[in-house]
């Protein structure tokens, strides 16, 4: 399944683009997380990394559809 990943903050520097296409071999957020960590090991060094699906923080069990809006949320620092 082809998914597009929006990147923000330091995750953009690590993935190298505002929106990065990934050929996801699994079906869940957890599968995507494993694949990203393997492909971009710098992600593992972050304080935290959440994945948002359709503007909501998503746990690893959430299933991904090809049309979903997926985004990487490295440690936030607003305010």
């Amino acid at each position: 399944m082809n998914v597009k990943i929006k990147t923000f903050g330091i995750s953009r520097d690590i993935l190298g683009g505002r929106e990065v296409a990934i050929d996801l071999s699994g079906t869940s957020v957890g599968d995507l997380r494993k694949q990203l960590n393997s492909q971009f090991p710098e992600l593992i060094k972050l304080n935290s990394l959440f994945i948002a699906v359709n503007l909501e923080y998503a746990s690893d069990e959430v299933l991904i559809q090809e049309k979903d809006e997926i985004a990487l949320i490295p440690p936030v620092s607003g305010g």
Partner: protein
Amino acid sequence: MIALTHKPIEVQKVIQAATADAAGAVTTFIGTVRNQTAGKNVVRLEYEAYEPMAVSEIQKIIAQARERWALTGWAVEHRTGVLLPGEIAVVVSVSTPHRKDSFTACQYVIDQLKETVPIWKREFFDDGDQWVSAHP
């Protein structure tokens, strides 16, 4: 009023948006860019937001605050883009009938905002830059 903006924040407008006739108390928090971080000179900052999700997360925080306290008004505005020291990054304003609630609720909103809202800050020093809080 919940807004992200590339333009300088007008504090008076944010406070006005949070004020209500039934309120006796308005507490407003203004976060400004400090000229130092851990002893290093800050040259400038850049704030980036995942805008639709940031707005939706702030809406959730306000909804939680409204469940806990009798808010008569609220307004949150966060700046994005390049900021210089002294500029305003965020304004949170909350009004309530009673004083103590306005402090507690305003602090709750800014504390939660810093925890959950997808906004990122990059600090630029004389000799480099960093995404704040990214690494241990």
